[in-house]
């Protein structure tokens, strides 16, 4: 962790949180004293009936970063997110946005910051049912008293950005969940805010749509260079999206780091329990964490077919296997594009040395393999037939599931 912090000191700090504490209840003062004495949440609740949701949190979010707040339900993610734009009033501590302390800011200044710097996206979409898509997207601009013409123009741009052109005059009730959340995203983008707060923004969507939205978010962020704080309870999602991930537990941050940090140097008991508890991860083997190999690519297939399949399933590589399901290798999207361009058979661009494991390889041994490779790892039976595959996310998610069940 030391290392990563040093590496990143050259980046601009966008949001800085220092000693942030939030206590729900009528008499937070006494509870606050107990927090400072280091008493546990449970003890404080028994003594004072006050609910300590966040206790003395400190972290920075850098400009242009996609920062994920991860943790089990009730650990305080939503509360933390809402303290950043002060939808929830912190009990004590400092939240700085571009160097200005939000917590002590006057109502007027705060409103200005909310209007111009921070956009928010909600799990339930939170669209106004009586407004069209265009009017919903223009909501934030309307609040700023922008002229109708100007705000419609900006709203249309934002709608275009999220791929909803043509739906401007539709009402939210007529749209699918994924489309509704695009409207929510466009609304946050329309005001040109450079910070986006997303609370379980994709949790209400179907898995397929959800994956699409995640991909698009990554792409949008790369293009627009927003600073995004994304709340999720799903490890898969966190590992996929997060430039850095903060793992929360009971109102504190257990560990902050990149996905690799969490996998390789779990410095906190929370993650450590998954990785280091030999007994737990010994019982967990490839079979338990693998996903079904989605479409398999027939060995004689052409590059166009491969690209079509990748697009359809939203994946960036395909395993190659014949009718016998014997594993031959793997084709990446880059490989397929090259094959198409140079009009050579896929065989020539197939990766044959990607790592493979057996059905009963323990999770413990998977960890270093996963950290080394950029490819998904194929899971084979003893004959060499492909049974499934593992990506980083599915491994940690598998471990997390185990933790929850235990």
């Amino acid at each position, binding site marked *: 962790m030391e290392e990563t912090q040093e590496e990143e000191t050259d980046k601009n700090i966008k949001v800085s949180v220092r000693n942030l504490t939030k206590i729900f209840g009528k008499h937070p003062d006494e509870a606050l004293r107990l927090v400072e004495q280091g008493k546990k949440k449970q003890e404080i609740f028994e003594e004072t009936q006050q609910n300590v949701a966040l206790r003395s949190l400190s972290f920075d979010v850098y400009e242009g970063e996609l920062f994920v707040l991860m943790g089990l339900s009730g650990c305080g993610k939503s509360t933390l997110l809402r303290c950043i734009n002060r939808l929830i009033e912190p009990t004590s501590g400092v939240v700085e946005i571009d160097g200005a302390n939000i917590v002590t800011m006057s109502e007027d200044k705060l409103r200005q910051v909310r209007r111009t710097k921070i*956009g928010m996206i909600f799990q339930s979409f939170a669209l106004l049912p009586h407004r069209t898509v265009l009017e919903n997207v223009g909501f934030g601009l309307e609040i700023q008293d922008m002229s109708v013409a100007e705000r419609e123009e900006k709203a249309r741009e934002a709608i275009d950005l999220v791929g909803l052109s043509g739906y401007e005059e539709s009402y939210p009730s007529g749209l699918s969940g994924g489309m509704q959340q695009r409207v929510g995203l466009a609304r946050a983008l329309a005001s040109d805010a450079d910070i986006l707060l997303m609370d379980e923004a994709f949790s209400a969507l179907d898995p397929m749509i959800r994956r699409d939205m995640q991909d698009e978010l990554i792409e949008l962020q790369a293009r627009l260079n927003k600073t995004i704080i994304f709340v999720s309870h799903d490890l898969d999602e966190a590992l996929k999206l997060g430039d850095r991930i903060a793992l929360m537990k009971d109102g504190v941050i257990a560990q902050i780091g990149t996905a690799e940090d969490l996998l390789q140097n779990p410095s906190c008991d929370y993650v450590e329990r998954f990785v280091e508890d030999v007994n737990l991860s010994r019982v967990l083997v490839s079979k338990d964490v693998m996903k079904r190999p989605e479409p398999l690519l027939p060995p004689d297939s052409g590059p166009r077919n491969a690209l079509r399949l990748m697009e359809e399933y939203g994946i960036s590589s395909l395993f190659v296997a014949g009718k016998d399901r014997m594993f031959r290798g793997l084709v990446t999207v880059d490989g397929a594009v090259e094959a198409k361009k140079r009009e050579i058979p896929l065989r020539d661009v197939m990766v044959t040395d990607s790592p493979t494991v057996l059905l009963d390889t323990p999770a413990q041994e998977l960890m270093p393999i996963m950290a080394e490779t950029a490819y998904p790892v194929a899971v084979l039976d003893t004959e060499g037939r492909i049974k499934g595959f593992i990506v980083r996310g599915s491994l940690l998610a598998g471990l997390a599931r185990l933790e929850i069940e235990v």
Partner: protein
Amino acid sequence: MSDILPVGEVAEAVVAWINETFGWLLDWITMALDMLISGFQDGMAAIPPLILIVILAVLAWVLTRRNLKIGLLTLFGLIFIYLLDLWPETVLTLALVLTSTFVTLAIAIPLGILASRYVSVNTALRPLLDLMQTMPSFVYLIPAVIFFGLGNVPGMIATIIFAMPPAIRLTNLGIRQVPIELIEVSEAFGATEWQKLIKVQLPVALPTIMAGVNQCIMLALSMTVIAAMIGAAGLGLNVLIGIQRVDIGGGFEAGLCIVIIAIILDRITQNVISSGPDK
């Protein structure tokens, strides 16, 4: 009056005092309401009945977002009334009911908004509203007569008080039921309290508030016959005379007109927005 307890005397003294002290206010209210009703009534009377009926039918059709059924219902309902030769009475009843409703809403909606925002207002209003809703409608005639005498205005005053509770309650309820995320949206995007009310809370609560408007109109209509007992004119008076003179035919015709107006107004208010956004 009882000789042992001078309750009656005390009441008379209090009323006399109020009349003396607030006489100017009562006069002013009487004048304002009178103007409202006669303005409404004269305006409608100035238009030839059949033309007015067509205008009203078109208005009903437009208000309900081109609901043809309701437009035709209004047209034929009103023509039926016209053929019964009760048009002037109907115009007066409409004037009374709609102005009463207008005044009721002008008081009830702001009160409902206040009750939704301030716990203190809510706690103060609740027992009062409970009391008002359990009281028989005849009771409202007493203060109306005492302070405003006989005629259309006291009839309206009784109607306004009687029709007030559901409009307050439903406005309050509608605003409180606005989902918390929508409140968060308006705050997160930097809305002022006023913007939040106007752009989020009221529009989202509108279906519930309209249910309150609907109930308000129905209660006001239900008061027409009762208000006739203290001198309010219109269809209610015809019904009352029908009862007093055992004139079954006349009473029935006027009663039927009230029912027709009730149905028309009910359909219109129920469809003004419910057929709204979801196409």
